[in-house]
């Protein structure tokens, strides 16, 4: 019984941690969407900024990956 409750806690915690992935998705979408909005206004300047785009996406995504890691740790390491 106690083990079951601990396991339930693990699964609920992993599910809650997965919410962070959704938040990271919002962040990445925000970066990419704003880049596209800017790129359509001034397409000639867009090519030089793709590196900045990917850096921004990487930083936004890193925190989502952290929450994914927490979920994995709860599922397999705890």
């Amino acid at each position, binding site marked *: 019984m106690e083990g079951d409750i601990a396991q339930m806690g*693990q*699964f609920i915690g992993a599910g809650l941690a997965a919410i962070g992935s959704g938040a990271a998705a919002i962040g990445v979408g925000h970066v990419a969407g704003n880049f596209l909005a800017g790129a359509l206004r001034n397409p000639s300047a867009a090519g030089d900024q793709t*590196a900045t785009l990917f*850096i921004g996406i*990487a930083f936004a*995504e890193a925190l989502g*990956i*952290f929450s994914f890691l927490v979920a994995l740790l709860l*599922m397999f390491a705890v």
Partner: protein
Amino acid sequence: MANKAEDGGLAIHPMDQFIVKPLFGDGPVLWYTITNVTLWMALAVAAMVLMMVVGTRGRAIIPSRAQSVGELAYGFVHKMVEDVTGKDGLAYFPYIMTLFLFIVMANFLGLIPMSFTTTSHIAVTAVLGFGVFLAVTVLGFVKNGASFLSLFWVSSAPLLLRPVLAVIELISYFVRPVSHSIRLAGNIMAGHAVLKVFAGFAAVTWVAPVAILGMVGIYALEVLVSFIQAYVFTILTCVYLRDALHPHH
């Protein structure tokens, strides 16, 4: 260990593909044991050598197909280092080129069915990430001396805010190697786990067509992710290098 394949309901466990096994026999995995990770890392290095050394051996004016691919990769990374780091960063171009090629080859080799993805292991990517972190920190102090610390002292901010910003900058500096390595490993691991989950669904008769179509789509996405994550790893290395060479805001 809560989740076994039997009570998961799937025919295969999605995380089984990441198990490190000895290549010969069933002994314990020690630091010198030749494992499947060793094999696939060696294959990644062999692929690099094949592309950049053997492929460009002809040095033809009109390049062969292999040589054009090598030249394309070289030019791509060279332009990235020059754009992000500046002219003085080109001295470190060989290191960055090696990093990029190794990650891209390891990612693509991992996409071959039944192969092993070395970059899905944090142990592998952490060596790459912390290697970059150490190299960049040492380089920053060697090139700038104590004035490298001005990276943390944002002189454009109001004086009152600067200590607070220094703490934040310091934390973000030390989180860099962690996020740098976990981003690569996490992305690759998550993608391959999703592929295996869909493969597990394909064993159930009535969802099999949908699952197989989904796998094709996700596989295509994974090819894209493999390249983009190698690109992101490399470009962040360039950004960190730029901070080390020019720490002043």
